[in-house]
C-alpha cells in the first residue's frame, strides 16, 4: 500500500512538528484541529521554522514554498477522508484519543492506517477504541519532531504485520529513523528517562548533592548533553508530573513514582524555566545556581 496523503490530528507542538516532517518529505499533509487559533499558531510556527531553515541553508526558498503549499489545515474532520495514514497527536488522555479516533474511523476509508504519537499510553488500549485495531500503530516522535530523527514504533497486540511494515516504511520515507519497541508503558525513552530524573530529584531531596553538582557530575562523568535537573527545568515540573504519574499508573514501579519534592515545587510555582524558578533560578537568559 502506497502512502501519499498524511493526516495529523492535533496542532499542538508535536502535531505541528510532525506535519512539517511529513510535508518536508513530500507528502500532501492535512492538519486537523477543532481550534482555528491553534491551527493558525501552528502555521505561523511552521513558517518561522522553515524560514530559519532557509537562513541556515538547510532548505531553499523554492523547497519551502513547496512544503507550505503541501501543508493544509482544517477544522473539519471529514477533510481527512483522503488520508492514507492519520497520526493523532491530541491530548494524552485515553478518552480524548478514543473520541478522536472513533470520529476518524467514521470519515476515513477502510485502508487508512491510524497512528498514535502517544508517549505514555498503551497502543493496544488506544487502538481498542479506534474501530480499526488491526490498522493501528504507535509512532512516537521526539520533541521537537521537525529536528529529532528518532521515532519509537510499536505494534499493538492486534496490529497486522502488513500495517506495521507499511508504517515502518512510511517512517523511513519521512527521513526519520524508526526503532521497534514493544507496546510497553513509556516505550523506551520515557521508560528510562522518567525514573532516572526521579532518582536525581530524590538525591536532591536526600541532600546527597546540590542540583548543580548532580548535573555537573552526570555531564562530565557520562558525557550527557544536559544534567537531569536542568532538563527537568526545561521540560517543566508540571509536565514531568503528568508523564511520571501516567508511567507510574501503568507500571507501579517505585522509581516511576513522583518524589514529594515535585509537588511542593509545583505548589510554590517553581515549575522550571517557564516560571523563572525551578532547581535553578532564571533571569532572562541567565541561569543561577549552576
Amino acid at each position, binding site marked *: 500500500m502506497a502512502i501519499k496523503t498524511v493526516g495529523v490530528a492535533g496542532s499542538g507542538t508535536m502535531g505541528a512538528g510532525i506535519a512539517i516532517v511529513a510535508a518536508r518529505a513530500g507528502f500532501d499533509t492535512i492538519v486537523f484541529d477543532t481550534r482555528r487559533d491553534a491551527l493558525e499558531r501552528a502555521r505561523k510556527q511552521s513558517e518561522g521554522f522553515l524560514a530559519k531553515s532557509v537562513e541556515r541553508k538547510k532548505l531553499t526558498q523554492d523547497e519551502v514554498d513547496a512544503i507550505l503549499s503541501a501543508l493544509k489545515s482544517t477544522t473539519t474532520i471529514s477533510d481527512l477522508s483522503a488520508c492514507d495514514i492519520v497520526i493523532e497527536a491530541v491530548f494524552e488522555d485515553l478518552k480524548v484519543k478514543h473520541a478522536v479516533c472513533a470520529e476518524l474511523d467514521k470519515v476515513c476509508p477502510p485502508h487508512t492506517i491510524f497512528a498514535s504519537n502517544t508517549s505514555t499510553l498503551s497502543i493496544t488500549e488506544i487502538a481498542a477504541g479506534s474501530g480499526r485495531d488491526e490498522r493501528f500503530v504507535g509512532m512516537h516522535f521526539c520533541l521537537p519532531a521537525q529536528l529529532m530523527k528518532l521515532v519509537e514504533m510499536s505494534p499493538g497486540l492486534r496490529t497486522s504485520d502488513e500495517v506495521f511494515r507499511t508504517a515502518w516504511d512510511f517512517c523511513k520515507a519521512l527521513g526519520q529513523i524508526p526503532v521497534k519497541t514493544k507496546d510497553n508503558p513509556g516505550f523506551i525513552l520515557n521508560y528510562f528517562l522518567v525514573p532516572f530524573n526521579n*532518582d536525581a530529584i530524590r538525591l536532591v531531596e536526600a541532600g*546527597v548533592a546540590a542540583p548543580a553538582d548532580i548535573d555537573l557530575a552526570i555531564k562530565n562523568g557520562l558525557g550527557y548533553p544536559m544534567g537531569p535537573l536542568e532538563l527537568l527545568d526545561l521540560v517543566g515540573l508540571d509536565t514531568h508530573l503528568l508523564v511520571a504519574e501516567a508511567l507510574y499508573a501503568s507500571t507501579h514501579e517505585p522509581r516511576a513514582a513522583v518524589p514529594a519534592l515535585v509537588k511542593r515545587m509545583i505548589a510554590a510555582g517553581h515549575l522550571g524555566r517557564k516560571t523563572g524558578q525551578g532547581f535553578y533560578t532564571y533571569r532572562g537568559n541567565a541561569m543561577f545556581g549552576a
Partner: protein
Amino acid sequence: MLYQVIDTGNSRSFPAAHALLEKAEAVGDAVIIIGEKVGQALQTLASREHKTAVLIELGAESLALHTGESRGNEGSNVLGFARFRLGESDPTALVEVVRQPRSTDAAVAAAKEIFEGAGLRVAVCGDFEGRIVDRLVRPYFNAALKRLDESLATADDLDTTLRLGLGYPEGPISLLERTGLEHHYDVTLALFEAYGDPAYAPARRARVAKLRANKA
C-alpha cells in the same frame, strides 16, 4: 595551593601520569593520598590537623570508614574523592569530592582549587555510597539489562533510541559491554548491600558475566 601526594599504589583515580601528580610538591598545605592503602597512610600522617585539606582517594567505601561518624556532627579537614570511571575504561575528568556535615569550607575550597587546577571538574557530594553518578546511573543500567531480557527492544534499538532520543554518547548495553558487565555487578552488589534497594540488585546479565569472569 601547594600540595603533596602520597601514593600507596594501584590508584584507580590516577593510574597513569597526570597533571595533578606532576604539580605535586614535597610538602604543602594540602595532602592528597591515593591508592589502595589510603586508610593506613591517613592514620600515620603526621600533623594532619594542621593541613588545610587532606584528600583521600575512595573506592566504593564511604569517607566515614576512615574518619568516623558521630551524631551527624562529623567532619574535619579530611575529604574523600574519586575520579569517576566505568569499569576498566579511562578515568573521566569528573572528580566526586565527598564531604561530611561538618567538613571545613576551607578544605572543600582547597579540593576544588587543586583538582580544577589540574584540569579536572569537581562535583561535591555528601558521604553516601555510590556518591552521585553510580547512585543515579546503576538503576538505569539495571533497567536496561532487565528490559533487554524482556525483549522490550533489541540491544541495538535500545542503544539507538537512548543515543538519538536523549543525546547520550553511547547506549547502555554497548557501554556496559565495553566497560565490563562484571564490574557493573560489583558496583551494584555493593550499592544493594548499602541501601537494600531492589533497583540496585545486580541484573541477571551482570551476574552471569561475573560468574563467567570468576570461572575463567
